[in-house]
């Protein structure tokens, strides 16, 4: 098998396992909280640097998997250690490695108990997250997908807020319920597609409609929970509220993207006919996410809960774009995930900054913060404006591309919709108003106003460390907002290929196979 890897070096394996190796080293040899912090920072920065060549050496003209690696793992079941990235997965790896650095810096002072365990959890989590985006073998994918739950479970369960136990159980159950179904689906595909777990082979295998239908549902439940889509979203506000700041950052920044990534990596290319069949279903759920969830977000009293709901609404745009099967919509969805990774992460960090000072997330406990924290107010304004998708911020590029792609969807998507997709785009565009309502209303209540509360009067402005982790986020949000081309360039070929897969029916090939198969089976017997 020809491996496509310009570096001739297992860079993906290194990216995946460097954090865990570092964690192992820290666990065994590093003593003292301060040393642990610096060592973890060093490991995460090193990982980030290791992932940079993925960006630099990425070939944009091809949809082929790159930086591939292949080793036999469990030959008895034809399970392989197969890695590779394309324009859909590569940006997420950099997003992960960058956000992990920021998470570790953000936890510098606010985590004082079990510092070592906390840092180890994050480094292990990074391994699993990068692993998910690199895996080209379904079992490997599933392994990372499930393994990720453990550190996340611990992060919320050990370092979380008052109701952390309820939140963790809910989080764990929801995601486990989903992933168990995914396992079933993967096993089913293994048997059907001729004893292979290769994701690329699944993409090529012509499943007939019945198979596609059931497997799609199983996948859908797994991915929809992760996205999360209405109505399986209620675990997210709880998990976010209880998670420590950095936990929320990773949760919003990366974990939510795995669901939508699953749609793009599994559902669309492997099950094109079922994906098309379910377009109206996904569209309706996405629109509910945009409208219903935005209204719910508006009424939240807890800042983290509000941002969590806002995340769900933004992910509604992502799922909508994903199922329109057009270049603009899918790229908009992908870009939206990356943009949301920065914006939502930054907003959670903003809440973290406030929380570290007053130990409350209630909007009503704040007011007039700008009087004592002007720099913070300015920073938070930038991200609030990014959250309402103002042009010049990354989110605008994402939303407008999704809307453009939805207004003018592929024939495959439109054929399954009873109404013109234009109306879908118009309903989704109400987010222009709704996002402004919930985001800026919160901003007004928290930041603006006179200083009336004694507790707020004593709040010091951000220190250099806090300011330091916002600077790269601001630069990234603005850079992606005014110059998104480098990122879009990475996506073009892979997305074009994906759309071709998603809009090409597998049924003809499946029918041909069905007529041929009994003969073969007879011959084998």
């Amino acid at each position: 098998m020809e491996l496509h890897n310009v570096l001739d070096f297992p860079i993906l394996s290194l990216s995946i396992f460097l954090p865990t190796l570092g964690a192992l080293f820290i666990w065994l040899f590093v003593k003292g909280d301060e040393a642990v912090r610096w060592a973890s920072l060093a490991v995460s920065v090193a990982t980030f640097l290791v992932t940079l060549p993925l960006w630099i050496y990425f070939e944009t003209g091809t949809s082929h998997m790159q930086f591939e690696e292949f080793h036999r793992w469990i030959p008895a079941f034809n399970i392989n250690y197969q890695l590779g990235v394309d324009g859909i997965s590569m940006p997420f790896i950099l997003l992960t490695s960058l956000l992990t650095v920021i998470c570790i810096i953000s936890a510098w002072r606010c985590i004082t108990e079990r510092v070592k365990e906390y840092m180890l959890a994050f480094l292990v989590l990074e391994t699993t997250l990068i692993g998910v985006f690199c895996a080209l073998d379904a079992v490997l994918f599933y392994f990372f997908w499930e393994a990720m739950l453990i550190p996340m479970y611990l992060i919320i369960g050990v370092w979380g807020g008052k109701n952390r136990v309820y939140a963790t159980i809910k989080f764990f159950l929801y995601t486990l319920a989903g992933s168990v179904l995914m396992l079933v689906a993967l096993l089913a595909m293994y048997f059907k597609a001729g004893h292979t777990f290769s994701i690329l082979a699944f993409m090529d295998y012509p499943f007939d409609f019945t198979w596609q239908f059931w497997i799609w549902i199983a996948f859908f439940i797994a991915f929809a929970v992760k996205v999360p889509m209405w109505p399986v979203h209620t675990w997210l506000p709880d998990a976010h509220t209880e998670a420590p700041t950095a936990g929320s950052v990773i949760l919003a920044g990366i974990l939510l993207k795995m669901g939508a990534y699953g749609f793009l990596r599994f559902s669309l290319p492997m099950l094109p006919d079922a994906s098309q069949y379910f377009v109206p279903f996904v569209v309706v759920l996405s629109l509910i996410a945009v409208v219903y969830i935005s209204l719910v977000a508006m009424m939240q009293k807890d800042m983290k809960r509000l941002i969590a709901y806002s995340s769900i609404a933004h992910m509604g745009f992502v799922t909508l774009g994903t199922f329109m099967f057009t270049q603009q919509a899918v790229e908009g969805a992908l870009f939206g995930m990356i943009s949301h990774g920065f914006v939502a992460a930054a907003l959670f960090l903003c809440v973290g900054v406030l929380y570290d000072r007053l130990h409350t997330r209630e909007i009503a406990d704040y007011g007039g913060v700008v009087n004592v924290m002007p720099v913070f107010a300015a920073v938070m304004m930038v991200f609030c404006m990014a959250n309402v998708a103002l042009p010049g911020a990354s989110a605008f590029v994402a939303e407008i591309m999704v809307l453009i792609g939805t207004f003018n969807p592929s024939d495959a998507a439109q054929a399954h919709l009873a109404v013109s997709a234009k109306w879908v785009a118009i309903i989704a565009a109400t987010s222009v108003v709704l996002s402004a309502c919930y985001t800026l209303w919160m901003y007004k209540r928290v930041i603006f106003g006179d200083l009336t509360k004694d507790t707020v009067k004593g709040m010091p402005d951000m220190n250099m460390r806090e300011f330091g982790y916002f600077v790269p986020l601001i630069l990234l949000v603005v850079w992606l907002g005014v110059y998104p081309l480098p990122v879009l360039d990475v996506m073009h070929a892979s997305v074009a290929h994906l759309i071709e897969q998603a809009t090409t029916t597998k049924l003809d090939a499946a029918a041909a196979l069905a007529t041929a198969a009994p003969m073969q089976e007879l011959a084998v017997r």
Partner: protein
Amino acid sequence: MHETAMTLNTTELLVIPALPLAASLVAGLFGWALKERLTHWICCLAVIASAILSADVFMQVQQGASFYGNFWTWMLSDQFVVPVGMMIDRLTAIMMLTVTIVSACVHVYTIGYMHGDPGYTRFFSYISGFTFSMLVLVMGNNFFTLFFGWEAVGLVSYLLIGFWFKRESANFAALKAFIVNRVGDFGFAVGILAIWYYFGTIDYREVFNQVESFVAQGHALHFLGWEISAITFICLALFIGAMGKSGQVPLHVWLPDSMEGPTPISALIHAATMVTAGVFMVARCSPMFEFSETALAAVTLVGAITAWMCATIGLVQNDIKRVIAYSTCSQLGYMFVACGVSAYSVGIFHLMTHAYFKALLFLAAGSVIHAVLADQDIRRMGQLRKYMPVTYFAMLIAALALSGVPPFAGFWSKDLIIESAKVADHLGWVGDLAYWAVLSGVFMTAFYTFRMFFLTFHNSDRLPEKTKAHVHESPKVITVPLLILSVGAALSGWWGVEVLDVANPEVAEGYFGASLFVMESHNPLATLVEEGHHAFFLTAPFWMAVGGIALAFVMYFRETAIPARLVASARPLYTFLLNKWYWDELYERIFMLPAQRIGRWLWQKGDLAIIDQGIIHGGFVETVKAGAARMREMQTGMVYHYAFAMVIGAFGFLTYLLLKG
């Protein structure tokens, strides 16, 4: 890059918006180190330089130069390309000139007005940033640059309305302004989506060139049995955006409240420039609007209603800035009427004259407010003429210009609008209604302007004692910009008609050249010439203006007891107008409160009660628990119970699949 016979210098064009942007960034990021003096020097010089360059561009454009080109690709995905470029033609040039001149005056004025404010450098950063955004808005060559500038000015407007963030009313007004504007932006965004869908491009030129053949193809949208032609849909969607930005009924509610911002802002953003962006957009898109009579009728109707309704509200307001704010809404309505009846050149002409005299009016009002210790209630002013002669003089010119008294600026442009509306027969009853609305509006405008004027500068001296000790003429940094704008307010009308020839019935032969498009079949200016209406003096609008001033003179100068008696005899009407037709209360009832109620209901009932308690807890978890209870001998630990049950179920499902397959 497209080359024309005379192409403007690219560097010069880029420098014009770049200077204010750089000044804004410097003031915003380093204002704390630069302190007041250096900050205002940097910002003022940048904007003044920008104004001088704009004047240079204006003169070159007048001689036939133009520019069209792309500098940058913003977004690209398959067929969807969004470049960033400029299109400089005569429409753009006159906007650039107006924006930068008013902005430069306001910058200088701000030095005096905002002196000593803790947010001094922040303020300069905002207004320079605003100038940049507004320039992007007018100079761009496609709908995305327009939208970028559009949203950026909205952001700055939001920040500046809430500039004094300690005030609850200011914060509320800022939020309201942003959200109401976003309702308009929703329409604008939908319009852009439709433009890309139907034309496959978002470039002005490419879109405008295709319009005629596109309309001939007869595209239409269908929804629930409704049919609407695509061009009408696009124009109406864009116009919703224009309504939001330009404070047109029913999206006007934010503009009067925006007066919570510092007065220089009310002059620059909420009178002279930003709020006119909607008019600019409709004029820019004249090649599209011309092909949709429905859209033109809608523009005319909305403009006429706003012009009339906001004038009635202005009659009774007591806050000096609110009187002027309602007059801004009303005058913007006039501009839309002009565009609606296809007299775009007149609409833009009124935009220009209005920018000068309304900025002057606001800055003079600011000078007054500055003198009377930040009190804005005209009931506590009076006889200020004695203390502030320069401000008095400036306000007088502005008031005459706004009222439409010849030879001041407003007269020329407003008269043309009214005459154009008069001959707009092709719009049927909408045209008639618009004519009567704008004509009666003149009377009201003259009345409320001079009511405000007399109450402030004449009438009896009603200043509180504390204020009286303080009141004085403003310093030179304030009065000099007033005098500069006075020149504009006095002469720009004459200049526009006689020098620029904006009212030429053949638009292409007048100042605007090819930058505006009017269909032969409904060109009101041509009709005016044919019917010999082109006489400026002693027409109905003139007498309306004189009548309004005379009435104000009687009521607020001579017989000052009349107003109170009048109010007493028509109390319900007075209350109705004083409460601004109850629009705010209406919106609170039908939008704000229901949205909150629905949101709370969806959260408490939808998310918590039904999904969490009902389905997940009651249905799912309880079922699993019941099943798990039977297996308690085998497994312990809650999570694993559930997981195990699920795995079992999952394998059952798998078995089914395998058997079936």
